[in-house]
């Protein structure tokens, strides 16, 4: 098999140096190759290239039938079918309301503002409700933590609402007093309420002695008030909080630095220099949408004032992808890096208290030292305008040190501020251990768990599940433990299966509740639909426990009545419900003073986990901490870095993999804290060496139809002592499992799809990205056989800014939700049949020389969707004209005409056409049919589908504009049109709209010199322009632009580009 060159087999293009030692230096920019198979010369890559529609085996007829019989039977049944159905068309019924709700227009969606707790903060949402049920989630532009955007997980929450595996009613584990078999009985809601009331009455007699409530980070002021009311009635009870991936380290770090636990609120928009230490700020922690929006506002290349972003991390993340500089470092060495930076800051005159940096940092590598020096210099030059952020998994010692650095740099009050905690509760994995100890000692005999899944997520050495099991044993059993447990959850999950009582919880989209964001902003959660299975909110359960009678709605109104005041309450209440947020309710910053002695002590006490390998625990990109494991959209969503779905793997660097003799899919045994698990390995370019990242959340024991048997549970390794970060070993075990990776299905042969420049290069040669292909290949402009269209009306187009795309895939999930895209399962993905209309391709770039091999490769994400080519190759070959061109530039897809020849998909150079090999709509459970968008056809077997530029939204906007008489209002409607992907994107990388309207962002973007089109050389004239990625590197770490800028292929007499236009 020919070894694939790094870039391209076309010699001229191949000379655009991207890290091959024999290639000339970067000549004005950088070109990216695609998979790491490209980089490694993997022969499998060549094979995959030629097989878009290939099957593993040729079609085999069903067994036991020979061809002749098969055809006879088919012919006969077809003939009979004609007689059977008759000639009259089937009757279709219309069922109107008996009493139509006011203002409801059948079929036209209404948007409601609500909010959900997630990531330790709250996100404001605008949820589209069609015919009384939610069908699409969008971000609420009014809410500071959303600003109009969402993440992939937030989009997927909608499908969880309609999960057919949800709990349908309360359950009670009964052990008959007279002996006999114990059993679990389904009971009615009234019975569950009766039990709660009697349980609460019994507790009141004891003043709550022996009772504990375990909560998750529900961010609800109403729940906080309910718990306070409960503690007044039950003063001896205790409340603890446990989140598998919570903010306790950051809060404890603030306690060390400032004397009390505080919430750290960052403002990235004010930061000229940003340093992120091992945190995925833009996708899975902190307040990701707000951080991404703020980050994006400082990456406007043309506007000037571009920020500089440094990321130091162990495992590559979307945040690291968009950094200007990314350092791979073990997570356990981050403290040493921060110390080194502290020392360097002192050299630039920053007043870092000397005791803080007294501890000698462990020996850092040269790259790490250079990074620290450069970062420190930049931060020192941007006092008050820089920001250092530590990731959630870093221990409190690092958070405290980072807080101290921010204080020294004068960033506090500018780019970072501290606010009081929303609800102070004992939290963290250690409190769970204390709870279990208390239960074993019989100090706690009653446990109410509101949400969460502690039987699945508890640290490995906290025997929570075992405890619940022991409580179910007969009283005479030797290890019986006296515990009455109640779990309120949306599913009968691992914890509910073991608890004494299970009460169904209302999903966020069917709850009356409220939320408080990390900065204190208050919002209401209002339901989009009555609870599907009679679920209850946490506050309701507490209310019932203390014999209250109010339901969730009354409880929330009471909370807000107190907050908004009685005067004009109804009006104020309706306004809050309408806006989705209480404006100006953010908490005031707390004045902080640094206790540098305490920080120094903590830093001195820090001991990095010792072991050959460090073991890092990250939330699974599909399941988060397990709560989304049964969500088909999330399981099938390729994760941003590996592009893997329907499984989890251990991530190690390429160097480590080659040291251990590992390739993608090999089984490894990872050992930590005395336990080991076996799972496949994923070779991850850019991972730190001798470090392995395990994702938590897969391998659920809950037998949901989606999550059953998916992935490996890595939590046996996650002990209390090393809850986020541990040490252990990785060894090759025998075995292999093919990784379900979507990248590498369509290999684009190293053509310059992704183009990148530094700011200096962009300034020197702005048109490089646009013209590079023309300059190097000297292709004569290809001519089309068909005359060009005149687009005098609307001209729909899109631009995607690669500087901003983090690869978070919120757009992919939004598209899936908006367009009823089916989920296939792992078998379909392994056959490269995944149906996502929009996909994120991850490309690697090499570095000059590549001294450490491909681990130093920088990655970029490129969203790829139907390019709506003006000269579309797919339109030209459809035998039945099922795909046509609209006068406004849309490449249309008419499903009812399509006969499934797949010729269009074959002809598409971008491979964005997806074929329905089976009737994926056939076995959708009844509840899940509710999630479909009624404005988009649900496709059946045998038709092609592809991105339509959200034609349903385009048509709705045009219809609304047509009904409008005022021209200014018409323009406003068209300008307000957003495609689903554009609306979801947290960094606003995607712009969609009318290219003929010069005021629209898309038109402005398309006119930029760095706007280029993918594969433009084949003259398909795509409507999507990509804005070349611009990085803002620190010249101390890399040259801004090489002094010898070679234009490969520019010499006269070059083999390509004869004036006569001969084919080369």
């Amino acid at each position, binding site marked *: 098999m020919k070894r694939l060159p790094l870039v391209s087999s076309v010699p001229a293009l191949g000379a655009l140096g991207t890290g091959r030692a024999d290639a000339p230096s970067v000549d004005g920019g950088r070109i990216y190759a695609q998979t790491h198979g490209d980089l490694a010369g993997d022969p499998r890559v060549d094979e995959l290239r030629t097989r878009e529609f290939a099957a593993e085996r040729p079609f085999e007829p069903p067994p036991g039938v020979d061809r002749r019989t098969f055809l006879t039977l088919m012919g006969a049944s077809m003939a009979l079918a004609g007689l059977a159905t008759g000639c009259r068309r089937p009757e279709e019924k219309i069922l109107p309301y008996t009493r139509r709700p006011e203002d409801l*227009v059948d079929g036209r969606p209404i948007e409601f503002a609500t909010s959900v707790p997630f990531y330790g903060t709250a996100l404001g949402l605008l949820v589209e409700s069609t015919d009384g049920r939610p069908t699409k989630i969008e971000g609420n532009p009014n809410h500071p933590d959303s600003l109009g955007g969402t993440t992939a997980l937030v989009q997927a929450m909608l499908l969880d609402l309609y999960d057919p595996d949800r709990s349908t009613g309360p359950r009670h584990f009964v052990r008959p007093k007279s002996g006999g078999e114990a059993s679990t009985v389904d009971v009615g809601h009234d019975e569950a309420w009766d039990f709660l009331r009697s349980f609460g009455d019994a507790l009141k007699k004891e003043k709550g002695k022996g009772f504990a409530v375990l909560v998750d980070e529900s961010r609800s002021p109403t729940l906080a008030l309910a718990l306070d009311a409960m503690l007044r009635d039950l003063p001896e009870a205790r409340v603890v909080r446990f989140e598998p991936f919570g903010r306790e380290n950051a809060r404890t770090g603030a306690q060390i630095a400032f004397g009390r636990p505080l919430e750290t609120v960052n403002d990235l928009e004010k930061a000229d220099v940003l340093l992120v230490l091992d945190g995925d700020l833009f996708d899975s922690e902190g307040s990701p949408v707000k951080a991404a929006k703020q980050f994006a506002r400082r990456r406007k290349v043309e506007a000037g004032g571009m920020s500089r972003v440094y990321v130091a991390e162990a495992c590559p993340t979307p945040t690291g992808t968009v950094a200007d500089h990314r350092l791979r470092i073990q997570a356990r060495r981050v403290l040493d890096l921060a110390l080194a930076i502290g020392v360097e800051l002192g050299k630039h005159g920053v007043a870092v208290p000397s005791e803080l940096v007294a501890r000698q940092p462990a020996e850092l590598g040269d790259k790490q030292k250079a990074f620290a020096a450069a970062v420190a210099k930049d931060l020192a030059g941007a006092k008050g305008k820089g920001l250092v952020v530590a990731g959630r998994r870093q221990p409190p010692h690092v958070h405290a040190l980072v807080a101290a650095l921010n204080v020294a740099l004068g960033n506090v009050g500018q780019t970072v501020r501290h606010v009081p905690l929303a609800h102070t509760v004992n939290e963290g994995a250690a409190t769970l251990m204390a709870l279990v100890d208390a239960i074993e000692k019989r100090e706690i005999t009653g446990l109410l768990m509101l949400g969460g899944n502690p039987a699945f997520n508890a640290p490995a050495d906290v025997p929570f599940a075992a405890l619940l099991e022991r409580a179910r044993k007969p009283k005479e059993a030797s290890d019986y433990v006296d515990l009455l447990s109640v779990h309120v959850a949306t599913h009968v999950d691992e914890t509910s299966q073991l608890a004494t009582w299970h009460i169904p919880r209302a999903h966020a989209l069917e709850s009356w509740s409220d939320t408080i964001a990390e900065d204190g902003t208050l919002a209401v959660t209002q339901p989009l639909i009555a609870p599907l299975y009679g679920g209850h909110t946490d506050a309701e359960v507490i209310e019932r426990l203390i014999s209250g009678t109010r339901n969730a709605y009354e409880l929330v109104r009471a909370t807000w009545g107190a907050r908004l005041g009685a005067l004009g309450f109804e009006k104020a209440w309706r306004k809050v419900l309408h806006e989705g947020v209480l404006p100006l309710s953010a908490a005031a910053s707390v004045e902080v003073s640094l206790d540098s002695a305490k920080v120094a002590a903590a830093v001195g006490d820090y001991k990095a986990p010792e072991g050959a390998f460090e073991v890092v625990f990250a939330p699974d990109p599909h399941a988060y901490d397990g709560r989304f494991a049964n969500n088909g959209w999330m399981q099938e969503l390729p994760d941003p870095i590996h592009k893997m779905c329907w499984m989890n793997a251990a991530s190690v660097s390429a160097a480590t993999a080659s040291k251990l003799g590992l390739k993608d899919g090999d089984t490894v045994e990872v050992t930590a804290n005395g336990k080991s698990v076996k799972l496949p390995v994923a070779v991850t370019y850019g991972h730190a060496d001798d470090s392995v990242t395990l994702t938590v959340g897969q391998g659920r024991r809950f037998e949901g139809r989606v999550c059953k048997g998916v992935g490996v549970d890595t939590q046996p390794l996650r002990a209390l002592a090393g809850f986020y970060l541990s040490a252990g070993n990785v060894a090759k075990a025998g075995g292999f499992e093919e990784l379900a990776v979507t990248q590498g299905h369509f290999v684009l042969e190293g053509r310059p799809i992704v183009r990148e420049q530094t700011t200096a290069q962009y300034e020197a040669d702005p048109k490089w990205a646009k013209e590079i292909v023309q300059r190097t290949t000297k292709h004569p402009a290809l001519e089309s056989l068909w005359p060009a269209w005149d687009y005098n009306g609307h001209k729909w187009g899109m631009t995607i800014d690669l500087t901003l795309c983090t690869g978070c895939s919120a757009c992919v999930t939004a598209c899936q939700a908006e367009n009823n895209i089916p989920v296939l399962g792992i078998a379909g993905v392994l056959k490269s049949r995944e149906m996502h209309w929009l996909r994120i391709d991850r490309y690697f770039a090499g570095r000059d020389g590549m001294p450490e091999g491909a681990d130093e490769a920088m990655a970029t994400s490129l969203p790829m969707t139907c390019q709506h080519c003006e000269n579309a190759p797919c339109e030209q070959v459809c035998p039945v004209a099922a795909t046509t061109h609209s006068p406004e530039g849309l490449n249309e897809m008419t499903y009812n005409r399509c006969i499934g020849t797949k010729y269009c998909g074959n002809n598409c150079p971008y491979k964005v056409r997806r074929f329905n090999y089976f009737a994926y709509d056939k076995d959708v459970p009844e509840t899940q049919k509710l999630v479909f968008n009624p404005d988009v056809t649900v496709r059946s077997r045998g038709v092609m589908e592809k991105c339509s530029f959200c034609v349903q939204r385009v048509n709705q906007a045009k219809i609304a504009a*047509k009904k409008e*008489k005022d021209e200014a209002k018409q323009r406003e409607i068209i300008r307000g049109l957003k495609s689903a992907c554009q609306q979801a994107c947290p960094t606003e990388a995607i712009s969609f709209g009318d290219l003929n309207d010069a005021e629209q962002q898309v038109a402005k973007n398309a006119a930029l010199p760095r706007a280029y089109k993918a594969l433009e050389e084949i003259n398909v004239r795509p409507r999507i322009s990509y804005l070349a990625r611009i990085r803002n590197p620190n010249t101390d770490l890399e040259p801004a632009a090489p002094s010898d800028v070679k234009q490969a292929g520019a010499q006269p007499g070059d083999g390509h580009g004869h004036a006569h236009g001969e084919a080369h």
Partner: protein
Amino acid sequence: MSRFLFPKWSNKVLPLGFFFGLGPAGTAVVAGVWYYGTNKHFEVGYAPEQPVPFSHKLHAGDMGMDCRYCHSTVEKGAFASVPPTQTCMNCHEKVLTTSPNLAKVRESWKSDVPIEWVKVHNLPDYAYFDHSVHLSAGVGCESCHGRIDQMPIVEQKEPLSMGWCLDCHRAPEAHLRDPKDVTKMGMLEASQKSGQPMARPADLRKPVPPQNCSGCHR
């Protein structure tokens, strides 16, 4: 060996039978179904029996009720909407309160169970039609639904096939009127008889009906 051999008479009978019998007969059947199995012949005249014998002739014709009193969402959204039971009861709580014809309506009102009307004008699910934009352009109800005010039982008068839609989309002038008059019945016939287009203010926007696929197919 026993090989099947066609008998000698099949040399003449089979080809003759095919070319003069089965062939023309089969072609006629196919042609007939092809031509007559279309909306124009199949769907026009469809007048199914409804659960409640509601007479548009009485309400819209003799009593002169405007279409939009009941089909209230037609100017706001895609669907004209069969009215909720509440709309019927607006009058029938006081009028004809014991009529046997309205028994099902009263029962629906009491039991909160919808009346199961049979859909007359039915488009396939892959065709997305929007009423409101047609009304705002000035297409009258009778252009597509015929003289509803003369129908004791609703009957489909127009084929509602894609070709029929496109005929108007390509030349809409004959069906456009002042949007204020969309529910007036009889204007279309008068206009067709006189040969004059219906009255329409000159300053209205010129409708641009989509003729491309994605105009209706999503």
